[in-house]
């Protein structure tokens, strides 16, 4: 964070040093405030999750757990089926990620590599469906899943998730395929007797594993974080996903004394997101192809 000093006859070096110091100090102050803003909720969640109900209800609020306790966590996993919800979410999100990435990869490959009639149209459809918010197709899909008898089943929710995961994964993957492997490699393989399909499975897929993994993680997180779809498609008893379970927890146990166990449940729900974030983080800034990821 050094100010680059442009040569100028009007100012002395001392003036520049002073300005540079001031600028750095202001930048540091600004970034400090930004970090407090982003981290504070995590801190408040963590400290609340380790407090006793007595400390939680104290006025004014207590900023650190005076008697750190796991009571909140124990209650979250014993009184509420948080572990079960967690497993439900893991199952649904993992299957969604695997299915969506597989289905998307073949489509992404031909879009990235070949020109054929309708390719542009299909690409447009993918971009359009990925772009438009889920609520615009929510109600018909709800009735569709209901009519085929898959409401409150894992497959029903997974199918709904595939609706937005597949276009997302296909768009990310086709961008990745374009750069991960030079077309000459596949052309050489074709001359050596590979078919188009084995060129895909034996050449493209193996060299693209890092990208495919990243896309699968993004897809997983999309399903893991979803509240909207799960709130209507899988909201009965033990089958709920974690997000829906948390919402009910907040609704029925939102009373002050239970906030510590609710915060503990939130911590549990945050762990997978943070773990995967650290894995993705390295590839993020460089690998983010504009437009294929939505916030």
């Amino acid at each position, binding site marked *: *964070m050094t100010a680059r000093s442009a040569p100028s006859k009007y100012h002395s070096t001392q003036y520049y040093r002073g300005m540079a110091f001031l600028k750095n100090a202001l*930048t540091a102050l*600004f970034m400090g405030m*930004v*970090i407090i803003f*982003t*981290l504070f*909720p*995590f801190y408040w969640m963590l400290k609340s999750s380790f407090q006793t109900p007595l400390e939680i*209800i104290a006025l*004014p*609020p207590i*900023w650190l757990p005076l008697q750190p306790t796991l009571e909140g966590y124990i209650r979250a996993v014993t009184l509420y089926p948080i572990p079960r919800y967690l497993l439900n979410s893991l199952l649904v999100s993992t299957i969604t990620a695997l299915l969506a990435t597989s289905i998307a990869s*073949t*489509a992404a490959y*031909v*879009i990235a590599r*070949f020109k054929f009639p309708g*390719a542009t149209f*299909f*690409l447009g*459809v*993918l*971009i*359009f469906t990925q*772009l*438009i*918010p889920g*609520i*615009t*197709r*929510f109600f*018909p899909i709800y009735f*569709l899943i209901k009519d085929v008898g898959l409401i409150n089943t894992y497959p029903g929710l997974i*199918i709904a998730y*595939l*609706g937005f995961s597949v276009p997302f994964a*296909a768009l990310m993957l086709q961008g990745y395929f374009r750069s991960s492997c030079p077309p000459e490699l596949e052309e050489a393989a074709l001359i050596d007797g590979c078919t188009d*399909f084995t060129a895909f499975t034996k050449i493209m897929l193996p060299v693209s594993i890092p990208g495919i993994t990243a896309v699968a993680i993004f897809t997983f997180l999309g399903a*893991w*974080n979803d*509240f909207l779809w799960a709130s209507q498609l899988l909201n009965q008893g033990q089958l709920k996903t*974690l997000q829906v379970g*948390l*919402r009910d927890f907040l609704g029925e146990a939102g009373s*002050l004394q239970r*906030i510590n166990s*609710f915060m503990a449940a939130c911590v549990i729900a*945050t762990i997978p*997101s*943070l773990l995967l*974030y650290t894995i993705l*983080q390295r590839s993020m800034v*460089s690998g*983010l192809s*504009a*437009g294929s*990821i*939505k*916030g």
Partner: protein
Amino acid sequence: MARKRNLFCYLMLAPAMLLVLALGLYPMLASIRMSFIQYDLMLIPTQGTPFVGLANYQTLLNRPEFLQALINTLSFVVVVVGGVVLLGLLIAQVLIREFRGRGAVRTLVLISWFIPPMVAAGIWNWIFQPERSPINLILKFLGLITRDIRFLTDSSWVLGPLSIPFLAISLVRIWNGLPFTITFIMAGLQSIPNEIYEAAEMDGANGLQRFFYVTFPMIQPVLAILVTLLAIGGIGHFEVNYILTGGGPKGLTNILAVMAYNEAYNQYRFDLAAAMANIILIMTSIIGAFYVRNQVKERSL
């Protein structure tokens, strides 16, 4: 050969294509259709689903709550998108530079990216609990307020679409949306060749001038895409508003997606819900049309 190649392409496309048609395009069309018929779950057993033309839209237009939700939706987009883009530009400017501990700072700033909206809403709901809010405590300590702010329930101060609950929810959405924006802008900044900055510096441009005459024009296309994506996401946003306030108090934080959802699952008026979903579809399609064209062109090269 070409024909065989085409067949191969279609076979590879088929599973994804079928899925996208069945779960992407078809439901959008079905939703449009649903908005032109009477689809009231209470009345279907006796009256069926007769065609009613634009009646559902008329019903909505006659409801002040709908107009309020429409205005709120657009206002949220302006406040939240404006907030994340302005903050994002400033923060990305800093994070793009080389300095000691940059990796750690980046990690900390971007950490809220993948936090589930439900969890974000849950934590902030607790932070906003008036008597025990750390924000109120600090503001009182600084002597800025004497009475606790009731972040999510105070409807006493209203300025157009702005109110305390509106601003509180905007803050949560900015918190949750900032990392994506920063990353997106940083990717754009990295594509600016360093030589341009060096040239500008040689010509004696100061920091502000460099920003306005080099950085800004260079990342304008990236910003246009970013704002498009954020605006579309914002128009269809659901989670944070639904979980924190459900649209209240007095509809101050109600937005189209939340109102549609409540209309469907509390009132069983799926026709009105579909009409609102349709209005979201129209608005986002208009904004998205240029984006889709632009992306198709770029990627089919």
